[in-house]
Every structure is written in C-alpha cells, then in structure tokens.
C-alpha cells in the first residue's frame, strides 16, 4: 500500500474534485436528512429514488432531447408528483406506529422499485450523455471535471433554496413545528399529515435531482441505489439529522476526506475512509459535526 504522496498537481486536483463532488453528495443526502429529521422516517428507498431521478433525466434526454441540467427542476417536480401518492398510500397510514413499520415499508418499496426499473429499462448500465459530462476544466495545474463544478454549483443553490424554503416560508414554519413536536403543532392547527407528505415529496425531489447529477457524472444500473444510500447515511450522520447546512458541510468534508484517502491509500480505500468516519462520528458525536441546527 503506497503512502508516498504523488505530485502536487495530482493531490490538488483530487482534493478539488473531492470538494466539488462533496456538494453533490450533500444534495443526494438532503432528502434522506429532512425525511429523517421531520418525519422520523428511515427511508431505505432513498437510493432507488435517486436512481429513479437518474432514469428520469436519461429518459428526458433520450426521448425529448432535454439537457440534464436544464431539466433538473422538471425531474424534481416529476419525482415529487410520484412520491406524494406513495407517501399517502404507504407511509401516512403507519403514522404513530413507531419507526420500524415505515422503515420496513420503504425497504419493500426499494425492492419493488429496483425490479420496476429492471422491467422498464433492462439491467444495462447507463449514463446520461452530455457535452460537459466528461470535459476537463483546467485551473492552472489543477484539473477537475466540468460536471463536478456544475454539480457543485447546482447542489449548493438547491441546498440554499431548501434552506430558504424551510426558514422563510409558511410551509417551512409548519415543517419546523411538525419536526419539533408534531402533537403540539397539530394542536396549533398545523396539518401535520400534509407537512409530512410535502416533506417526503421534497426529499424525493432532492434525491432525484442528485440522481441526475450522479447519472451524468458516473454510471447507474437498477441496483445502484444501495451504494448511494450508504454514502447518504454517512453524510446525514456527519451533518446532523435534519440539519440542512450541516448536510452541505458534511458532504464537502466527506468528499474531501474520501479524496484524501484516495490520494494516500488508493481510490479503493475511499469508501473505507467514508465509513470509518461515519462510525467514528456515530460513536463520538452522534448529533453530527455541525453544532448549530438550522431547522
């Protein structure tokens, strides 16, 4: 296992790539974080919602020629529209029955979705083709993928957008109230069921938009969701459950540390670094690395 540092340009490029990719990881994890924070829902189908977004982006490009970035909000809206009835039918009836039943329901949903993708799109590996998907961007000696830069900017904008939605709107106020004490919020006239449905849809939309970016930068298959679910869990735990800016910081920290692990130990050790960090934070600081909660 080589520990010697490679040349400075490789290190700088890897760390810059990690930072940029971290932004995308934050977006992919945001939906999981708010569903967990507001609804106490361990959404084990989060990875499949992400992959669903990648398929929607791929389909929009193949059938209608819609650029993946230009169609990002469209994919988010489409996934939110699909997620709403899912929540109403499967999650809402389980309200007040503890965390296990909804969690296992979502596990079932994840299996159903994987098989649905398999039937609809076959098991082939796919990637969303775009001119910027594999184009390099040179900044002096540092070279990063253009899609990473685009993905980072888009992700930060969407995370800030979700933060504003939660902190500056009436829906956000209801969401925060439902998160803090759903019984008291209901007593004060907040329609907690509606808030939960919209929160689930918002989370699914974030996952789907993250999926489009992931599908453009990498490749995906019907069963690719599990990998991204695991990474999303690590980001959520690092950032603190339901903490929107914490999720962004955690995504970036994870991206940079994974890249550092890749540079020092080899790319094969990236996931090890991420999961070791996940376990360490879980043991030492279960509330997450970012102290202040935004919600």
């Amino acid at each position, binding site marked *: 296992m080589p520990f010697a540092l*490679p*040349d400075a*340009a*490789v290190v700088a*490029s*890897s760390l810059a*790539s*990690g930072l940029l*990719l971290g932004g995308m990881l934050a977006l992919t994890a945001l939906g999981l974080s708010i569903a967990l924070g507001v609804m106490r829902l361990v959404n084990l189908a989060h990875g499949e919602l992400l992959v669903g977004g990648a398929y929607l982006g791929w389909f929009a490009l193949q059938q209608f020629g819609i650029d993946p970035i230009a169609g990002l909000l469209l994919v988010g809206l489409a996934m939110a529209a699909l997620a709403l009835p899912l929540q109403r039918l499967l999650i809402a009836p389980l309200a007040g029955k503890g965390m296990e039943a909804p969690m296992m329901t979502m596990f079932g949903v994840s299996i159903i979705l*994987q098989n649905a993708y*398999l039937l609809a799109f*076959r*098991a*082939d*590996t*796919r*990637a969303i*083709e775009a001119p910027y*998907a*594999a*184009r*390099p961007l*040179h900044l002096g000696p540092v*070279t*990063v*993928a*253009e*899609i*990473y830069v685009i993905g980072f900017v888009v992700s930060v904008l969407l995370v800030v957008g979700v933060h504003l939605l939660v902190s500056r709107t009436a829906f956000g106020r209801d969401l925060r109230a439902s998160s803090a004490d759903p019984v008291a919020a209901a007593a004060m006239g907040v329609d907690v069921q509606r808030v939960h449905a919209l929160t689930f849809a918002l989370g699914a939309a974030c996952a789907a938009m993250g999926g489009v970016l992931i599908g453009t*930068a*990498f*490749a*995906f*298959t*019907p*069963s*690719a969701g599990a*990998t991204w679910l695991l990474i999303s869990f690590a980001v959520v735990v690092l950032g603190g459950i339901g903490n929107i800016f914490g999720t962004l910081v955690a995504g970036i920290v994870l991206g940079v540390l*994974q*890249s550092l692990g*890749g*540079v020092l130990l*080899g*790319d*094969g050790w*990236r*996931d090890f670094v991420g999961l070791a960090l996940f376990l360490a934070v879980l043991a030492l600081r279960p509330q997450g690395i970012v102290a202040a909660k935004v919600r």
Partner: protein
Amino acid sequence: MRFAFQTLRAAALLAASFAVAGAAIAADEIVIGASLPLSGPLAGFGNYQKWGYETAVADLNKAGGIKIAGKATKVRLVIRDDKTDPNVAASNTETLISRDKAVAMLGSCTPALVNAGALVAERRKVPIVAGCDPLGAFKSVRKWNYAWVLFFDEGDLATAPFRMMADYGLATNKKVAILADNGPDGQVVGGQIWPATAKAGGYEVAHSSSFPVDAQQFTSMIGQAKAASAEVALVDAIPPQAIAIRKQMASAGYNPKLLVMEKGAEPEQFAQALGKLADGVLVGGYWDPSFPYPGAADLGKRFETETKQTQSQHIADSHAAAQVLLDAIAAAGSTDREKINAAIAKTDKSYVVGPVKFGADHTSRIPITMMQWQSGKAVVVWPKDRATGKLLFPLPAAN
C-alpha cells in the same frame, strides 16, 4: 380409529400418486439448469447468455429432442437470476439441482459467479459446462471432476495488447498504467500477467492501482497515471466501473495513446452509454460472426433479427457451451450424471466458437482477438488475418 386409518390410507395414496407423477415428469423431459446474472452489474452479459442457452435448447427441441432409451425426449431449460451475487449463484445451483431436478448445469459469467456455482455442482456430482470464465481463474480453484469450461486463457488475453502493439509496430513511450479491480480475474490479469508481460516486452509499469469492484470514483489513480505520462492504459473492470473510468479519464484530460478495457468494454451497453467516448477503446475478444466456424455467421444474424440488438461474443460461448452439454447428453443416451460427465470429457467437435476439446484440466481454449469500438460497432482489429476493420491509433482525443 377407523377415520384415522382412512385418512392415513388417503394420504398414502396421495403420496404414491405424486411419486408416480414425479417419475412420469422425469421420464418425459430432461431438465438442465442455469444460474445467470440477469440483474446487477453483470446483467449485460447474462442477457446474451440467456439467449445463447435458450436458442441452443429451442433448436434441439425443434429437431425432436434427445433420444433417451430409444425415446425422443424434450429438454427443459430452467434459468434463475443470480443477481450478480456469487452467494445467490451458489444457492441457485443448489435449488436447480435439488428442487428443479436438473440433470446437468450451464454456467454463469465471470469467475466469481461461475466458480461459485461450479463448486456446488462439483459437490453434488452434477456436470456443469460454462463459457465466460477465464481458464486460469477456473483452474486455480481446484482440480475439477464435474465442471468444464470453454473460454479464453487470461495469459492469451493479457498478452494480446502487447502482441498487437509489436505486430503493428505501434509507437508509444512504453509507459504503462494498470488499473484493475480486485476480483479474481482482475487480480490475475492486472496484478500478475500485465506487469510481467510489460516487463518482458520492455515496457515500464509507470502506475498500477487496484480497486473494489463496486468503486465509482477513480480520480486519484487516473491523475497519477496521467502524471506518470503513461501512453498505454490497461483497465480491467466490469461495465459500470469501466464506463465511469472512461468518463473520468476524459474529464481529467488523460488521453493515453492506447486504451484497453477488459471485461467492461465487452457489452454493447458500454458503447451506448459512452457514445463517442467509446471510440478507439480496445477489448480482448474471442468471437465474431465473420470467423470461419460452423453456424457463426447465422448465429450473429439470428440474434440481431430476433432481438434488434447488436450481437455480442457472449451469444457464441453460451450457445457452444449449451451445445456441448446437449451433445454429451445425446452421446450418453441417458440422464445418468456420471455418463453425461464422461461424454463431456470425450467432446471433440467444432462449434460456433471453433474446435472444442477438453484437456485433463477440464478446459478448452478459445483463441484471442482484439476488438475495438468504432462508431458504436465492435470491430476485430487483431490478429491481421482475422481483422474486419483497421485499428484506430492513437486513441481519438476525447474532447
């Protein structure tokens, strides 16, 4: 008491009738089983294999089936999805043998899956014939008694790029980057054969990295290969990783002169997912419909007509493996597993992949060619006497 006796007698009669019915089913058809990766990262291979197996069996049934004790008997192929998971491949094999009553098996794809199923078949003394398992990785597991593989040898495959470069006199700076997954064949090809062949051919391994088969990010290793100015890049990875690596090579501005991507660049989905980025990528191959073997041209055409997809070499090794097994059952004239196994050992015939004759190590070698993606089509570019197109060299610039 009388009621209990009658119940017992009815149950005994019911059990007896089931046993008779079971025996009748067993006599009416010959069941062979296959566990295939129809989902998961290797589904791209599994779907071609499924077509190859099913086509061979359907053709045989159409021609009347196999004579067992003088009676024409149809063959029923039972396929189970192993989800690209060796544990599922093993349990599928167990199920196919014990529940589906398969008298013989056809293999999955890649050493991890084929060997997992073959070990179960070996333990149950059920013959299994497979393609899609490089011979070195197959032979290294154990001395086989009931498992048989017809495929290429890793040594042939791994040395092919170097032999091709020598044959064509391709000019590079002789610096090689090796990026290989840590699966069984990745370790053999990327960890042993490529470095040894490079050294023997006067090449310098400027960078070498290994990664888990489910990795997605390769920026560091690609950056190091670029920093080392390696003009020859050799990659061994399954399709999702191969696609991600090719994209990340381009986005890192790394353009080697020669790019070989074993395993991952084989299925058509590689070219479909990458578009123009696939152009110029080389992959070891062993079959093309243009090869002068019985039924080769027809098989390729048939696949494309029936499925509206471009043919793949995996239809050939799977079709040949199925025919070898079916011929052996016919030669044995029996569903006795020992007799079928003995008949497989005596195979000496030309199939769509060329001549098949098993050695003492239970393998039959298929010669290697080099294929290259050119405008969405896989073209044979080496050896010269089999080439169906001209080699694109150097690798076209990505951006």
